[in-house]
């Protein structure tokens, strides 16, 4: 499956709702998981002979297990409110990328086998048999949904296509047609502990290298501890933070924040991954297994708090699901929420005046901020509704002098996905990723031209990787995407003589 040539969409003067072009993305399909990857997760290696029966049985099971799925399949009235809300539709013009049309790929099969009207009058109500063509369409178009939930904001019944995508992917997994990218990664985390398959020695090496770099640059010994028993904070962060740009600059930022605040912290080599791809494939069991590694690491290391690094879908699983999947966390310090986002920690410290910041250090940049979809619409920060919008912005404004927001339809709850979320951040889907980034690129270009914005900050590992990859297609530079804590890292003033020796000694002794 070679990656076909494609044209990068043109950024217009203002956003337009494109006319439909049927089938233009039908060819877009990620690599199918090989049998050994499938079997590791307990799925059949390849398409089973009686796949139709298995699929239909699974659909029935899922509608009984998930109220969301049952209600969403019945309730859609085809009003069209969602049709122009998906970044993949706006970027590709393929009608099957309209949220309702994507849902209908699943719904038409549900109607055929599970509803009276679909059994009696399939043509009339748009019900269809499950055939190989339908399964092909599922594989193609349910891997063109980044589960970003933008459609669910605008649906009068709150129908969330992400729920249907997850269900469809789970059905495809149990019939033996899983996606390589997601399933390979989940397999690695089950065995090694992170998406990259980075074993403990390599992790330790990387972090030692970072300590040296930071000391060279600042003259201060900022520690990056791994597996330190008795630390207060277990930091769980996406593994991209250990090697990718600009993620790693964010990791340096977290370390500097902990250092200056005198908070002892540690990473875990057992749970060295925040991202939980179990959600992408709709598998409660896999998601729970991955979440339990974090619980185990917290118990083994005897920490008091769990803090998550900058990530989007990971923060959804952490904020919304972790307590349910792997709780109760009654062995942690009850004065902190479980888990906390690194932005909550940093924001709190700024409020308390415990960080010394010099925003002029970021004066070479004019910043804007990309709300990551799953932080914006599937989770929260702080104790107030909407804190996930305010807290990151307040941090940026504390560490930068020049900040502007992108147009209002493209931020906060209306934010566009970067184009690479939900298990699509793979090179075999590059065309989709480039096209899906169009709405965000339009909004960014708008503030670049009007306000001279030079950089966009993000707090999601997927967003950062995705933007570094697709920026050049739209004539931006790769390094115009920055980590939020990279800005904190730039502004934070570390003074060697003020290093808190008691804390350091404690940490050394531990």
């Amino acid at each position, binding site marked *: 499956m070679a990656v076909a040539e494609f044209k990068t969409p043109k950024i217009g003067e203002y956003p337009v709702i494109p006319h439909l072009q049927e089938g233009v993305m039908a060819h877009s399909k990620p690599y199918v998981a090989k049998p050994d990857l499938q079997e590791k997760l307990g799925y059949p290696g390849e398409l089973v002979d009686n796949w139709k029966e298995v699929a239909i049985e699974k659909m029935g099971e899922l509608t009984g297990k998930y109220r*969301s799925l049952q*209600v969403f399949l019945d*309730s859609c009235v*085809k009003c069209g409110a969602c049709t122009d809300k998906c970044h993949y539709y706006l970027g590709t013009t393929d009608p099957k990328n309209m949220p309702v049309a994507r849902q209908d790929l699943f719904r038409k099969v549900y109607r055929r086998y599970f509803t009276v009207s679909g059994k009696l009058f399939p043509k009339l*109500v748009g019900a269809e048999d499950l055939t190989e063509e339908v399964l092909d369409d599922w594989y193609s178009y349910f891997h063109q949904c980044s589960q970003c939930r933008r459609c669910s904001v605008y*649906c009068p019944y709150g129908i*969330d296509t992400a729920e249907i995508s997850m269900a469809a992917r789970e059905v495809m997994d149990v019939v033996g047609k899983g996606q390589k990218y997601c399933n390979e990664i989940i397999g690695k985390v089950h065995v090694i502990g992170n998406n990259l398959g980075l074993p403990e020695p390599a992790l330790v090496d990387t972090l030692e290298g970072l300590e040296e770099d930071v000391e060279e640059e600042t003259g201060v010994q900022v520690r990056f501890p791994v597996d330190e028993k008795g630390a207060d904070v277990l930091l769980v962060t996406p593994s991209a933070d250990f090697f990718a740009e600009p993620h790693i600059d964010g990791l340096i930022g977290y370390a500097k924040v902990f250092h200056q605040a005198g908070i002892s912290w540690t990473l875990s080599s057992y749970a060295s991954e925040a991202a939980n791809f179990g959600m992408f494939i709709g598998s409660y069991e896999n998601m729970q297994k991955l979440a339990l590694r974090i619980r185990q690491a917290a118990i083994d290391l005897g920490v008091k708090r769990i803090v998550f690094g900058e990530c989007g879908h990971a923060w959804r699983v952490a904020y919304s699901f972790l307590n349910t999947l792997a709780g109760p966390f009654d062995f942690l310090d009850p004065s902190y929420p*479980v888990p906390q986002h690194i932005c909550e920690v940093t924001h709190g410290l700024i409020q308390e005046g415990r960080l010394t910041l010099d925003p002029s250090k970021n004066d070479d940049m004019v910043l804007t901020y990309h709300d990551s979809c799953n932080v*914006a619409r599937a989770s929260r920060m702080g104790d107030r509704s909407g804190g996930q919008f305010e807290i990151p912005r307040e941090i940026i404004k504390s560490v930068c002098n020049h900040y502007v927001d992108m147009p209002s339809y493209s931020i906060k709850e209306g934010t566009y996905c970067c184009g690479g979320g939900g298990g699509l951040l793979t090179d075999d889907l590059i065309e989709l990723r480039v096209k899906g980034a169009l709405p965000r690129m339009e909004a960014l270009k708008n503030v670049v031209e009007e306000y001279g914005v030079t950089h966009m900050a993000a707090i999601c590992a997927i967003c950062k990787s995705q933007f570094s990859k697709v920026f050049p297609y739209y004539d931006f530079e790769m390094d115009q995407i920055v980590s939020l804590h990279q800005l904190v890292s730039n502004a934070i003033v570390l003074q060697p003589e003020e290093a808190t020796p008691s804390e350091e000694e404690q940490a050394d002794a531990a």
Partner: protein
Amino acid sequence: MSVLTTVFAVLFYVATAILLVFTAHKIWRYAKAPAPLKIPTTPAPTTRSGVVFRMVKELTIFESLFKANKWTWLFGWMFHFGLLLVLLRHLRYFTDPVWGWVVFIQPFGKYAAFMMLAGLAGLWARRIFVDRVRYISAPSDHLMLLLLIAIGVTGALMTFVDHTDIVALKAFFLGLFVFNWSPLPDDLILIVHLSLVILLMIIFPFSKLLHAPGIFFSPTRNQVDNPRERRHVASWAARLESTKTG
């Protein structure tokens, strides 16, 4: 007793039974299926009363639809609010004596028929002329609008043009409640109107009209945003729990 009266009396009993039994069955399914994870679309209320407020806004002013598309919102709201007034006005045919507030809304309810029809016409126009909405429409989506428009037009004809024997009609309905049938007037427009209403009642539990009960069960709208404070384990997930090794 005329054949017509008997047929319609029986049809109304059957249609009402189908509507109630099958809708109740669906509601029971919605209530029984667990919501194993917290999935409110955020920002979401952090308290129960906040959720009630969010739901009230969805139900009365269609808040999400307003954010999505002003035309669909306008037509959709005109239709639903018009329908509500029209239905409430119809209570006068089923109650004796007629409640004071039903008397009060009578003039509004009469003219609400036009608002309802205008809304339906707008929605159908969108379904025909907007290529995105046309693409997602099945034949049943068009027919549903046609059915509602036909019910509205026949009703409005009787209100404003060609009155039926409303006293006799009311006696027929009151008779249905006590199983003591009175004759149904045999006006053609009335027969068409009632036939279509019966059809709508029968279709309801098997169609997208389930959005009416469905919205109350939508987890993205009715959940409180408090997952860090409270665990939210569904019964089937609890069974996995007992085998967890962590």
